């Protein structure tokens, strides 16, 4: 697995600006840590999932009868 680049507080501030939300500045440090941990874990997990496994929210095209 490629090393996941850590998320920095500046990244979080930028992403919040992109999202249009008003970020409470002291939250940025904690959010950066949490995003890094989650992204690292999830991407590590990805290495063990078959490539053809679809996400669990795939669209169901069936119509009700």
């Amino acid at each position, binding site marked *: 697995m490629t090393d996941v680049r850590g998320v920095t507080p500046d990244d979080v501030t930028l992403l919040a600006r992109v999202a249009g939300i008003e970020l*409470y500045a002291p939250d940025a440090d904690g959010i950066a840590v949490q*995003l890094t941990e989650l992204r690292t874990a999830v991407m590590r997990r990805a290495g063990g999932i078959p490539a053809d496994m679809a996400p669990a929210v795939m669209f169901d095209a069936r119509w009700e009868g």
Partner: protein
Amino acid sequence: MAGANELHWLSISEASELIASKKLSPVELTRAVLERIRAVDGRLKAFVTLLAPEAEAAARAAEASIQHGQYRGPLHGIPVAIKDLYDTAGIKTTSCSKLRASYVPKEDCTVVRKLREAGAIILGKVTTHEFAFGFDSPPTRNPWNLDCTPSGSSGGSGAALAAGMCLGATGSDTGGSIRAPAAVNGIAGIKPTYGRVSKRGVAVLSWSLDTTGPMARTVKDVALMLRVIAGRDSLDETTVDVPVPDYAAALAGGIRGLRVGVPRNYFSEDVQPPVAAAVRDALAVLEAQGARLVEVDIPDAEYLLPTFFSIVIPEAASYHHETFLERGHEYGEDVRALLETGEAFLATTYITAQRSRAAFKNAFREVFRQLDVLATPTLPVTAARAGQATYRFGGREEPVFGAFARFCCPFNLAGLPAVSVPCGFSPDTLPIGLQLVGKPFDEASVLRAAHAFEQATDWHTQRPQL
């Protein structure tokens, strides 16, 4: 029959037999429960909105119907509490947030509509953690220890039941929010299979994980409530058209030969010793009743919690996005920080988490090939003290949110039915819960196993001293 000062401790099953045979009036029962609320809720603060006049009026109407031979079934005349996440027509529904302080829905949500049609008496709205996004439910306190929280997010429901302030209650469960309050308050609650019960009219936390379900003081009562509220709802496309069995009738038969899985990993790691001991004893009770214990391994378990957080956080942020743009500063600090985190989530992380979830669904299907139910502690801990931020396990500090989610969220990810039933107390008299998990839409087996355990023990009969 229970004395007048004990009516509030009746189970739904007991009360319904008395009401059906006209030995107990719904008016008398409702007044007894309202009296109990007045006596103890000042200390517990479970009720957001108490509907005393409305409840008495509904009880009088129920009494009149029953006197005229129009008995609707086991919930007719039974006082219940509704989590303040659920829309109730004409009654403010706050989600315990400043942002919805004055929100008054025009219509009942589907679950409340079904409860009213069954003749249940709506006592009022009880606390939730703000928008169900947490495990505290402030300002409610735990009836077993007023310094502790009732957990969450259905903490108001859990506390109200444990204190005798209702006979049944509704909850919602995205990562443990029915089961955790059930465990720490010493009552029963079921997170049904995803799609078993309608969520229409209930505030969203995470569309792909949310479930709604019943809570009560006994497993039979949970079964009675589940039969009323389960079923396909054409207004909720996540519900599935699977027949709803008579869950109470399905409790009979015992558990001889039932294959009960006991995980060797994950669910035995970082567990408080009294919890581990209580669950070990509970497994021995199940075995003594004829169940066959089967050791199993949960693959890739270290990814369960990160997968869960990587779904619930961005989905919650998506639900709240428009409001957050303009009024983010009005959310509670804890919820605000989580929603900010969700706004910063990369789509690739979320989508990979959903693929991880699909893999876990398959993994649990394989685990269940040799099982009927799986048994675990509901939580690795007992109730948190108000303001407590972490639990300590040896040299490791774990945030309360993670400790409450880690044994519950795997079954939200897999969409499986999971019940919590009381199985003991810690040395400081805090309740402990046993979690029993089943195959999709096999609530009947899960409830039968929980009922058999409950009937062989007396944990569910213990009452807090208030």
